[in-house]
């Protein structure tokens, strides 16, 4: 985030010097740089998410993806104050998301640890549990159900991974055909492992 901030400041100074004539081009360039940086961070976020969730990253963010739920989740996660600290862990070793996930979830900073859990639940349930809510649950376990702080979006509900892990579809969102329930589902791997 430091680099991003510096780029933003430098661009701002250059734009002021260039005056009104050049400002449109510079703004476009800034947006492109910002987008590129953001995209790189989002990809790291997805990689870390794969380690956290146990779901292959290509499943979480397919190459061809009209839904692009990862963008919604990335945007939601960024709103948390501990996000930058969480991302530094995966940046330090982007080649090993499983290890990074472990460092997040066993972090000495509870803000990072609970944000990691919030991110897992976001992928699994399409819902956002504030890290503070999860922390509160642990200090004083409520009787279920545990209502989330918010549903990310209608699309997010339909993309919840807990359904696929149960080898099924979200309730209310079947893409299957009549009678499928009389037969065994495909194996778990077919739902969550790397696409061949």
């Amino acid at each position, binding site marked *: 985030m430091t680099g991003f901030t510096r780029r933003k400041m430098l661009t701002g100074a250059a734009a002021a010097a260039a005056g009104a004539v050049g400002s449109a081009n510079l703004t476009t360039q800034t947006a492109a740089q910002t987008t590129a940086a953001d995209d790189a961070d989002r990809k790291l976020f997805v990689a870390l998410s794969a380690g956290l969730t146990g779901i292959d990253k290509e499943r979480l963010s397919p190459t061809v993806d009209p839904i692009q739920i990862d963008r919604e989740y990335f945007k939601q996660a960024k709103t948390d104050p501990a996000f930058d600290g969480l991302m530094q862990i995966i940046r330090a070793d982007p080649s090993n998301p499983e290890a990074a996930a472990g460092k997040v979830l066993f972090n000495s900073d509870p803000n990072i640890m609970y944000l*990691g859990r919030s991110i897992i639940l976001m992928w699994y349930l399409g819902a956002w*549990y504030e890290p503070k809510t999860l922390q509160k649950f*642990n200090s004083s376990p409520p*009787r279920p159900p*545990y209502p989330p702080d918010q549903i990310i979006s209608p699309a997010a509900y339909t993309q919840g991974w807990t359904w696929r*892990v149960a080898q099924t579809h979200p*309730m*209310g969102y079947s893409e299957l*055909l009549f009678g499928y*329930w009389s037969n065994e589902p495909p194996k778990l791997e077919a739902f969550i492992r790397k696409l061949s």
Partner: protein
Amino acid sequence: MCAERMPNPDVLIVGSGIAGALIAWQLGRKGRKVLILEAGEALPPDINDYMKTFLAAKDKVPESPYPPALFGATGLTNPRTVNAGRPTVLSLLPKGGFGDWTDPKQAYLIQKGPRAFGSTYQRINGGTVRHWLGTSLRFVPSDFEMKSRFNRFVDWPIKYRDLERWYGDAEKYIGVSADVADQNYLGINFSSNYPMPKIPLSLVDMEVEKAMPNLKVADVGLDDLKWKVSSTPAARNSQPYQARRVCAGNTNCIPICPIQAKYDPSVTLAFALRTGNVDVSYKTVASKVYVDGNGRVSGIDFIRYDKDDGDPVERGRLTAKLYILAGNAIETPRLLLMSKSEQTPNGVANRRDDKGSVGKYLMDHPLYLAWALTDKPVWGYRGPLSTAGIEVCRDGRFRRERGAFRIEIGNEGWNFPIQDPDTTTVDFVNGLNGSGLNKDSKPLFGTGLTCALNEKLSRQFRLGFLVEQSPDDTNRVTVPDQVPDELKDHLGLTRPHITYDLSEYTKRGMAAAKTTASAIFKSMNAEEFTTEPKADDPITFEWPPGQTTRIKYFGAGHIAGTHRMGERSENSVVDSLQRSHDHENLYLVGSGSFPTIATANPTLTLAALCLRTADHIINKVLK
């Protein structure tokens, strides 16, 4: 505006649920002019908005897709601010917090206790059958003869054979999938075939079925039973029918089928409107029924609004030759009891002395819910919410002593019991054990998480026992003459007041259900996880009597009995054709006419009763 839409209708119907819609369609087909007053929102061109609301809802309860909004800025919508309010399961929670069942700012029904009435309903186009399961069982012959056969309660003024042909018509009109060969138990016979083949069994059903030969249930009157799993007749398409799609197993019949493979009354309403003889005035609340000096109903007052929480935009009175109240078994008696006048000092259809029965004998199927893990995967959360049940226990000599029950096998894992898969997922991610499945309360992630969740979720299943409730005159809907404003709706009408309890007969039925559930789980080698309810839970009772242990009963949404049929007005409100004993041009239709509730889900039976009533009106009254 209402009168202009359909001037001088032959029939005025209050309520566009399945009862009102079916009768309107039958009358419209035969050229009778019908105007329906519907308290809630209009029939939409499709269900997309309802689906979006459902998908975005944090609490995916039966009411969640439908207006009015469940939540306001600070919590549950205050029913005082809504023109056509309705109850929600979210306001059945302990006193003192969110969803307090006794708080009129959160709960639409004014619950007077001693226990909470657990069922809810919709006031919207299509009524409560918008969010039904689709189960379309016939009653068994004994259900109509409780007094004669078991010396309990009352007989119906009709028998199974009187309703048999109307059952067949109802199955055709709403579109039921089933096979006669699976349904002719306990004396049920058929003179017609179902219009569609049965819905296939789920893997969960098959696993329960395997345990039936070895099942023994002692001490509840079921010792010698030959246990059997039966496919459940369902108003859910197994073939394209009525221009609707085949079921795709969305596992979401309640609250909403996203493809309308499950029947809902919007289908019948569309047929009714297509006759050109039926019209509906939406957002139009019937507020008072008038009776003239000859004892005939002379008109119904209405209040129309535009916004759910807005002021009325029109008031007036409508007249017709014949009047049909088809609200539900709470809203219909509410309207009758609100309609006090010099002619009707106790309310309409409620006699002039103190022997009237309007609002009394409120019933439901108190539902005992039990859940377990099988010893191998059965892959729940797939298929329709339920595809089979155990029906052979619906009748027997034990009905002299306790309520009977049927058993519904659920295909939705532990969604009903603990709102899974969400709860178990949170447990395993956050190191909790509310589900009982994460015994070490250990947080997991990565592959360990996927494996643990898959291993647990794929073995979940539940059983629901629909218990026969006794008709008790102390269980009732009332409408006091004077109440503070906070007990009214936004139109200034007093909300329904409910007094409710479970009799010993009903409780013994619930206790037998509990015993049977545990025996089934044992026979399946399944591990039971049914939890003990807390003492402050308003839908529980102590059992055994005098002990601190409790049994929880859920509402089944099967509201019945408050304008029951019978031969005399001393102990009933309508005759076998659902015509008021007191007013010959007034009909009160729906499950409110049931003298006893039996064990089958009530919709098919109330549909059959309504078709019989429509036939009578067409051929005998409005010839």
